[in-house]
C-alpha cells in the first residue's frame, strides 16, 4: 500500500461514514485533499504558463515566423461544421456524440477565454458556471421540482406524475445563462481584490464549493437530489419539436437526437463567437485588455475596474451556463460528479494551448485537447498522463499556443525595439519577472 492509498483508506475509513452534527468529516477531508492535489496541479500549470513566456525570449526569432491561418476563412469552417455530422451519421452515429461533446468544450473554452484571455483573471473554477446552468435546467425540466414541492408543501402541492415543469428552450437557455452570469457576479465580488495565483486558488475553491453544495443540497429541502443527481431531465424542445424524439425525420431520413443537439450547440457557438468578437473590439473589450495589462493604470485611466471585472465573470458565466443547460438536456442525468475540478483545468488548458486571448485559438484548443481526451476515456487515468506529456511538448515546441491572438503573437515573437536596434534590456527583464 503506498502513501496515497493509505491516505485514501484513512479518508474513507474512520471518517467516511461518520457524519457529526450534519457535517460529514469524510467529505471535508476529501475536499481538503483534493484542493491540495489540484492546487498543486494548478500551480504547476501556472508555472508552465510563466515558463513559456520565458522560454520564448531566446527563441524569439524562431517563433517569430508568421503564423498562417489554415482555417482562416470562417465560411469554410462553418460549411465543414454543417456538413460534418451528416457524414458522421453514415458511420453509425458514435462520432456524432463525440463531436457534440467536443462542441460543448469549444463553447466552454470560448467563454473562459473572456475571463482568462481578455481580462487576465486566472479562473480555475469555471466548472461552477457549467454546473449552475446544468442544475438550473435540470431542476426546472425534470420531476425534481414537482417532487420537492410535494414533499415540502404536500398539503398544497399534489404529487406530480410526469416530468415537472415544461418550458421551451427558448426560455430555458437564456434563464440558465443568466443564472450562471448572476452566479459569476456573486463569486466575483469577494475575489475582486485578488490577483494571479491567489485568485486562481480562490476560484478553484469556489468551483469545488459549488460541487459540494450540489452534493449536499438534498436536505433539509431536496433541491439537487444530492449525490444521486437529478434524473429524468427533459430533452430540449421548441414548439412541438422535441430534440430527444427518435421518430423525428425529414422525409425518409430519421434524425437522431444528437444531431439536434449538435446543431443547437453549433448555433450557440456561432452566436457566442459573434458576441465575443464584437465585445473584444469595443470599448468594453479594450477596457478588459487594459485591466489584464495593468489594473492600476486602467483604474487611473478612468476605467471602473470593479464593474468591468464582474462583467467579464458574468459574460464568461453566461456562455458556460448555456453549455451546462445543453449538457443537462442531452444527457438526461446530472450528478455532482459531472462537475469535477478537473473539467475546469481541462478547459483552462484548452485556452492556453489554443492561444490566450484569441477566439479561434480557444476553439482549436478545445478540439485539440477535448477530442483526444474524450476518445481515450477507456484508458482511464493513463490518459491524464498522455495529456500531460502533450501539454509539456506543446509548451516546449509552441509556447504561444496553436493560434495565438495577433496581439499575443507579436508580444511573444517580436524582439523589443527601442529604436536603436538593440534589444530593450528593461523590457526583457520585465518579462522574466512575470
Amino acid at each position: 500500500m503506498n502513501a496515497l492509498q493509505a491516505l485514501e483508506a484513512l479518508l474513507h475509513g474512520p471518517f467516511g461514514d461518520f457524519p457529526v452534527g450534519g457535517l460529514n468529516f469524510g467529505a471535508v477531508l476529501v475536499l481538503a485533499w483534493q484542493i491540495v492535489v489540484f492546487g498543486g496541479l494548478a500551480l504547476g500549470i501556472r508555472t508552465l504558463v510563466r515558463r513559456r513566456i520565458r522560454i520564448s525570449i531566446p527563441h524569439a526569432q524562431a517563433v517569430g515566423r508568421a503564423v498562417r491561418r489554415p482555417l482562416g476563412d470562417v465560411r469554410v469552417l462553418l460549411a465543414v461544421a454543417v456538413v460534418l455530422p451528416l457524414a458522421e451519421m453514415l458511420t453509425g452515429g458514435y462520432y456524432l456524440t463525440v463531436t457534440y461533446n467536443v462542441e460543448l468544450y469549444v463553447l466552454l473554452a470560448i467563454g473562459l477565454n473572456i475571463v482568462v484571455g481578455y481580462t487576465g483573471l486566472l479562473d480555475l473554477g469555471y466548472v461552477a458556471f457549467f454546473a449552475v446552468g446544468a442544475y438550473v435546467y435540470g431542476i426546472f425540466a425534470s420531476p425534481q421540482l414537482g417532487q420537492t414541492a410535494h414533499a415540502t408543501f404536500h398539503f398544497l402541492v399534489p404529487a406530480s406524475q410526469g416530468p415537472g415543469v415544461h418550458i421551451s428552450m427558448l426560455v430555458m437557455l437564456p434563464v440558465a445563462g443568466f443564472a450562471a452570469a448572476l452566479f459569476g457576479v456573486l463569486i466575483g465580488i469577494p475575489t475582486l481584490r485578488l490577483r494571479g495565483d491567489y485568485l486562481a486558488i480562490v476560484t478553484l475553491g469556489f468551483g469545488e464549493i459549488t460541487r459540494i453544495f450540489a452534493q449536499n443540497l438534498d436536505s433539509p429541502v431536496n433541491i439537487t437530489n444530492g449525490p444521486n443527481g437529478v434524473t429524468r431531465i427533459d430533452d430540449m424542445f421548441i414548439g412541438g419539436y422535441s430534440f430527444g424524439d427518435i421518430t423525428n425525420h425529414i422525409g425518409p431520413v430519421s434524425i437522431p437526437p444528437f444531431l439536434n443537439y449538435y446543431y443547437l450547440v453549433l448555433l450557440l457557438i456561432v452566436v457566442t463567437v459573434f458576441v465575443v468578437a464584437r465585445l473584444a473590439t469595443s470599448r468594453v473589450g479594450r477596457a478588459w485588455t487594459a485591466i489584464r495589462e495593468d489594473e492600476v493604470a486602467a483604474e487611473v485611466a478612468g476605467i471602473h475596474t470593479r464593474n468591468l471585472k464582474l462583467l467579464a465573470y458574468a459574460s464568461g458565466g453566461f456562455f458556460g451556463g448555456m453549455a451546462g443547460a445543453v449538457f443537462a438536456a442531452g444527457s438526461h442525468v446530472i450528478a455532482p460528479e459531472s462537475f469535477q475540478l478537473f473539467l475546469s483545468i481541462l478547459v483552462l488548458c484548452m485556452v492556453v494551448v489554443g492561444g490566450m486571448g484569441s477566439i479561434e485559438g480557444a476553439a482549436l484548443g478545445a478540439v485539440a485537447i477535448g477530442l483526444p481526451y474524450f476518445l481515450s476515456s477507456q484508458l482511464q487515468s493513463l490518459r491524464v498522463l498522455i495529456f500531460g506529456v502533450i501539454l509539456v511538448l506543446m509548451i516546449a515546441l509552441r509556447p504561444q499556443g496553436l493560434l495565438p491572438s495577433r496581439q499575443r503573437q507579436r508580444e511573444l515573437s517580436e524582439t523589443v525595439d527601442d529604436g536603436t536596434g538593440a534589444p530593450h534590456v528593461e523590457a526583457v527583464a520585465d518579462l522574466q519577472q512575470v
Partner: protein
Amino acid sequence: MALLQLSQLTKAFGGLVAVKELDLEVEEGQITSLIGPNGAGKTTAFNMVTAFYAPTSGSVIFEGKPVSGLKPHDVTSRGIARTFQNIRLFANMSALDNVLVGRHCRMHATYWGSVLRTPFERREEAAAIEIARGHLDAVGLLQRQYDLARNLPYGSQRRLEIARALASEPRLLLLDEPAAGTNTQEKVELAKLIREIRDGGITIFLIEHDMKVVMGISDKIAVLDYGEKIAEGAPQEVRQDQRVIEAYLGKSA
C-alpha cells in the same frame, strides 16, 4: 478660488509621516511644480490627489468639492488625469488603443451597444479614434499609432502616457517626473509640450527633478522635504531660499 486646494494634507504609513500638513493651492491655467529630494513625499501627495491613497487627515478640494471618498476612476471622470513616475502603459496594446483606453470615461457605449454595434456606438467609436489620433499627433506619435506600446522608445513611451492622460479631457493634469530618463533634446521638447498643454487650457501640477525644466516652465514651485513644505513661490524666490539649498545640498554647503 484655486482649482485644486490641498489643506493640512497628511499621510502616515504606520509611524512614518510621508506628507505632513501640506497646504498648497494649484491655480487654474498655471504650471505648479512640486520638488524636493527623493523620498520627500511628492508622489504620496499625488496619490492622495488622485484618491489612490486616503489621507490620514486634511483634505483635497478640486473645483470646490472634496476628492475624498471617491474611487480613482471617479477622480479621472471629475477631470484629474495623471502619469506615473515609472511608466505604466498597457504594454501589449497599440499606442492608439492606449489612448482610446484613456478616453474610456468620456465614452458611453454600453455592453449591449457594443454587441449590437448600434449607430451610436459606431459614431462614438469613430469619433474617439479621430480624437485619439489628434492626441497622438500632438505628442508626435501618430506615425507609430499601431505599434505596441512596449516597442516604443523610452521617450516616446513617456509622451504616450501624456497622450493617454489627455484623452480623458482633464482640467488638471498631474505629471510625475515626465523628464526622468530623457535626454537633453527630449527635455526641451517636453518643456515645449507641457507649455502647449497649459496654453490649451489645462492646468498642470508637476513633479520634476530636472531643475532646468522646472525653473523654465513653472509659474509656482513648492518644495517638500521630509514630507513638509519648506518653501513656496516663484522660481526665482525658491532658487535663492536658504532652506531649499540646505535641503538639496546639505547644511554645510
